[in-house]
């Protein structure tokens, strides 16, 4: 079974109107269980649209999207995925603890279950001491970690992330990248990760999918063959720089 299977998907916004945009044209993509796939490409090439299609936040104009062997709509209702965006999007009136608990609450889990799961998730992202804080009391990087903990709280088989580290400084970003990889390895989660940083895509991924705009489509797929666990040594290795160069060339060719 595949984690995600996208077949011949096209997405046209405002069809027949003056604002008609072909955001995606004839996209095919398969993600294996446990695989980490990055989507990279210039602004407006349809990365977010593709992620929203997988999340069933929008329905494709044509083609099919399956998550864990189910149609995307069914998968969403079953909470088969967790999602995080560039903005942490925490509920500012809830404490860190209650933010992470929300998806569990909506699944009807008992209080005790929620408590223990949330403690586990906050431990994972290194924020166990901040459970009772409100989001406004946290830095941007900490808020983003809460958002990741929340996305992972239901132990979804699939994690969808749309430029989650985009607003963070380089140091925080690199630390969170390492943390994210460790979490995904530990939980066996498949991940689709949108970014426009080449080095971020290479460092994180098993596979980098290169997209180009007007109309949005996939122009290349680069397999990243780097040792795991990925650490600082990997970031400095010649193989890493080679992979960065390969992705950069693919991006150039697409433009």
């Amino acid at each position, binding site marked *: 079974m595949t984690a995600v299977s996208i077949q011949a998907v096209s997405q046209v916004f405002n069809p027949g109107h003056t604002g008609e945009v072909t955001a995606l044209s004839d996209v095919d993509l398969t993600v294996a269980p446990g695989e980490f796939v990055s989507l990279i490409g210039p602004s407006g090439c349809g990365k977010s649209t593709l992620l929203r299609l997988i999340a069933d936040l929008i329905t494709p104009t044509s083609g099919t999207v399956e998550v864990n062997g189910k149609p995307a709509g069914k998968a969403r209702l079953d909470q088969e995925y967790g999602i995080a965006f560039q903005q942490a999007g925490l509920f500012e009136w809830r404490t860190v603890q209650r933010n992470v608990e929300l998806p569990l609450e909506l699944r009807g889990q008992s209080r005790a279950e929620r408590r223990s799961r949330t403690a586990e998730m906050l431990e994972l992202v290194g924020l166990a001491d901040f459970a009772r804080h*409100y989001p406004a009391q946290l830095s941007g990087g900490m808020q983003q970690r809460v958002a990741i903990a929340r996305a992972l709280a239901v132990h979804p088989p699939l994690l969808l992330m749309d430029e989650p580290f985009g607003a963070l400084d380089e140091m925080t970003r690199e630390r969170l990248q390492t943390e994210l990889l460790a979490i995904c390895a530990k939980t066996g989660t498949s991940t689709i990760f949108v970014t426009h940083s080449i080095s971020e895509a290479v460092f994180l991924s098993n596979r980098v999918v290169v997209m180009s705009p007007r109309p949005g489509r996939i122009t290349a797929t680069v397999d990243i063959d780097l040792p795991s666990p990925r650490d600082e040594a990997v970031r400095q290795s010649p193989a890493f720089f080679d992979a960065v160069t390969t992705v950069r060339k693919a991006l150039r060719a697409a433009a």
Partner: protein
Amino acid sequence: MKPSAGGLRRVLPPLVLGIAALTAWELTVSLGRIAPFILPAPSAIGHELIAQRGNIWDAALASGLNALIGLLWGTAAAVLLAMVASRFRFLADLSLPLAAVLNALPIIALAPILNNMFESTSSLPRRLVAGIIVFFPVFINTLRGLREVNPVHRELMTSYAAGGWTFTRLVRLPGALPFVFTGLRQASSLAVIAAVVAEYFGGLQNGLGSRITSAAAFTAYPRAWAFVAGACLLGLVFYLATLLLERIAMPYRI
């Protein structure tokens, strides 16, 4: 909050300005620049304030109760109707001009009419007037808050397959709370003004408004001003109570 240098710096200027203004006022009146029956000296008003403190307290309780009841029902009606209006776009579009018309209704015009509709011993017309005045700012602000949902919150709730009442309860209502309080802050002082002014048009003689009119009718100007000062204090108490409630209701705002 503990007093700090910053707090002192915030309190000191208005305090100094207030004392300077009172001194200037006192001097202007005592030097004969203004006749005491036009504007009594602050010392005369202060004297009456102390002499009449029992009466002022009783009158403030009566007017304050009317204002509070008006504030409560006006807020409840405004929040409930804003929730209904926010569910349907056309209702929201329709209700905004209607609420604006309601707001343009002068209480001066409304109070005597309502007074005549009820017995002269009834406090109801005053409570109605106060509630109607409260309705507009709370309704407008709450409606805006309910309609402005963070798009990330919306998408997250969709991803959790949560809609309808769950979405309203968990996202829209708490998200609208700061807006409700923006409306309430305006409404709390307005409720007091409305309750006091509504008494100018007859009816029960128990509140600050009726005491002001009767003192003025007896040309007891310092006493009238003492009751005016009581009305100011009552408005301030309502405003500060709203601020306190806001703090309690939204501890996450720092």
